[in-house]
């Protein structure tokens, strides 16, 4: 039964993920006085790409071929573990398993970026590793703030604790730290620029530059899902109010949807009011997030 619910949840999130990207793009466009693409644009793009053949460089190995599936599967699995309905959860819902599922997807994406031997792939891959080295500890630290409170690294326990807490300074700091990590992890300004066509500045886009057709469609879809997962995690752990618990699934669902849209819009605002920072300034930015996490821990 649990597995069934997990699978349904993962599928719902998978279907909803491109819409969240649409919301962010639309909000960004509005903030910049543009009309922007329709909300469902990414669905069209993914459908188009999935129906297309893929072109591969003759130099690539099997890693290049399996990576889109691994990246996609890892994101899907992580989506299944999110403690949305608060019904319990087992070993697999552990925070560390969750984080390393995402890391495994990233690991393969970096490997495949080096596979074709293109300069942009290599640059994107090395930058991605550079940033993830900074992001992962900070991400853990931010989430540990909540884990310490609940005395468990089980996501369900953490979400449950978060929900019963009243507003505290500690959460406020941790939320700030997580928001910064979320910007970095989803490849957004000021760390990466998802809209750029400038090959030399790319990070995520640089890594997937060699992909086309169906594998590219899968990567787009998985990236959208990963972003939704991060937003949901932020919502569940740091903005749990108002909470309706397992008692009212409908109200809980509505509340989460509203909060996800709000976070998506705030991502768009964050991306509009600032510009991309110099690559080597990213560590300072991550240090800021780390500092906020430490403050959060200290403020317990």
């Amino acid at each position, binding site marked *: 039964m649990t597995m069934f619910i997990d699978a349904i949840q993962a599928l719902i999130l998978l279907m909803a993920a491109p819409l969240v990207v649409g919301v962010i793009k639309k909000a*960004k466009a509005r*903030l*910049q*006085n*543009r009309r922007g693409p329709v909300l469902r644009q990414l669905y069209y793009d993914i459908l188009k790409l999935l129906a297309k053949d893929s072109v591969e460089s003759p130099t690539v190995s099997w890693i290049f071929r399996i990576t889109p599936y691994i990246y996609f599967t890892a994101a899907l699995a992580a989506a299944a573990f999110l403690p949305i309905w608060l019904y319990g959860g087992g070993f697999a819902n552990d925070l560390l398993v969750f984080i390393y599922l995402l890391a495994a997807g990233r690991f393969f994406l970096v490997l495949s970026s080096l596979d074709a031997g293109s*300069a942009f792939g290599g*640059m994107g891959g090395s930058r991605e590793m550079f940033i993830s080295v900074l992001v992962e500890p900070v991400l853990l630290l931010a989430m540990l703030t909540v884990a310490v409170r609940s005395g468990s690294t089980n996501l369900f326990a953490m979400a449950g604790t978060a929900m019963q807490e009243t507003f505290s300074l500690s959460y406020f700091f941790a939320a700030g730290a997580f928001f910064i990590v979320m910007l970095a992890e989803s490849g957004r*300004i*000021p760390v990466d*620029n998802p*809209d*750029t*066509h*400038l*090959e*030399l*500045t790319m990070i995520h886009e640089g890594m997937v*530059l060699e992909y086309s057709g169906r594998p590219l469609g899968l990567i787009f879809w998985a990236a959208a899902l990963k972003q939704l997962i991060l937003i949901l995690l932020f919502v569940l752990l740091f903005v749990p109010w108002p909470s309706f618990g397992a008692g009212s699934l409908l109200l809980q669902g509505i509340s989460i949807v509203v909060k996800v849209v709000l976070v998506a819009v705030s991502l768009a605002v964050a*991306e*509009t*009011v*600032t*510009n*991309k*920072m*110099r*690559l*080597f*300034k990213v560590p300072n930015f991550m240090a800021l997030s780390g500092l906020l996490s430490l403050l959060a821990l200290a403020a317990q």
Partner: protein
Amino acid sequence: MEQEKIWAGDLQAAAAKAYDNGRNSLVAMFANDERQIDGHFAIYCIFSLAQTPYFKILKAQLHESEPLEFPSVVPVTSAAAWYEREIHDLFGLKPIGHPDLRPLVLHENWPHDHHPLCKDFDIHTPVPTVSEEYKMEYVHGEGVFEVPVGPIHAGIIEPGHFRFSQAGENTIHLDAKLFFTHRGIEKAVEGLTIDKAFYQAERICGACTASHALSYSQAVESIAGAVISNRARYLRVIVAELERLHNHVGDIGNLCAGLGFAVGVSNGARLKEELMRLNELVTGNRFLRGLIVPGGAALDITTEIAHEISRMLRAIETDFIEVLDLLRENDAFLDRVNTTGILPRQAALDLSVVGVAARASGISKDMRRDVPYAAYQNMNFKVPVYTSGDVAARLWVRADETIQSIRILRQALAGLPSGTLRVEIPAIKPYSSGFGWSESPRGGNVHWLMIGEGNTIYRYFVRSASYANWPAVAVADPGNIIPDFPLINKSFELCYACIDR
């Protein structure tokens, strides 16, 4: 114009004297096949002098029976490097002592013995394709790797191949291979009448189209001795400044795209669009084509249109200053542009860099002020100069110039005299030559013409601002990290069409 005739073998010594250890600078250098006239090839060097007369021309002659070579001017000034490579490609005259004689204009797929600008090269000659290797410069060493970029880019960008030698993210050396879409306009216009060739000159580039039309027209008028009316002069100033406005505003917006600052990008695009609609209102063309013609102006600016320009300028000035404040007060933005992509003053002098790039590196140089043309002698304006030479300096020069442009436009609109629009270009004595210049949004833009029989073009040479400034990009970039290259490149905002003429 003072023109000193010398033998090609003495070119280096004469150039050294004219260059005067960097007190003067090389404006342009090009060859001409004058064998039909007097049995010689000629190599022209135009120098700009620190005092009047502003120009000095060296004409080095090489008899067709002599070996087709001349002493390179590159040891005197690095600014000659591209010009001589181009002469080598297009005329087969070999600069002796040039440190880098790789092909420039005609790439490695063009045979060595075909020199298209020689008069005995028929424009319809089928040219075989050869395959040779083009050696890009690179740096050896442990941990040093090369990053090739282009000529096909991920965005809608003109073709250019850039080869970065990298140590991690840091650029050690940059070599650029350009001229992928060289159109041979200089050859194509030979034999056309002045009026017909004008249309090709005006269309060399979309961004600086008015400046090209202006330089060409002034070259024709200077050779013909035609005096155009005051009204036409003022109209030309108005069009030239409208061109500067939409370029500078658009370039500032584009620069924001180089660092992912979306608000700057959309504001720049919006203001540029308003300006281009104004252009269409004034000349019937968004790129300001069709007003400036040899002999004066083809269109008039009526009082109603003048009012509309003034009204638009007020609105745009307010908006533009607001956008600038947005940039000036944004620390994240300033952090990216300050100290990025520094072009040292000495390098700018050595390469005879022009325009915005020169003024951002502490060189006060503006043809509108130094050698006034059209009605600029009647205009009161400042030439902004910054000394830091970085992306920020080039940005603020553009910003200040935009304000000055609006000032000039107001003066020109207020003082617009009455008079005829256009005078006839009289029959010109064959084989007389001369040149015209204008300050395009990117810098000085020089067109040299030699007229043949029946007011046709015998030889046409274009030295655009982009041609003079491209080598400077390769100097400004090393020492920066590779993700900053797009930003540095955008701060120069050089044009490919202007060099692929």
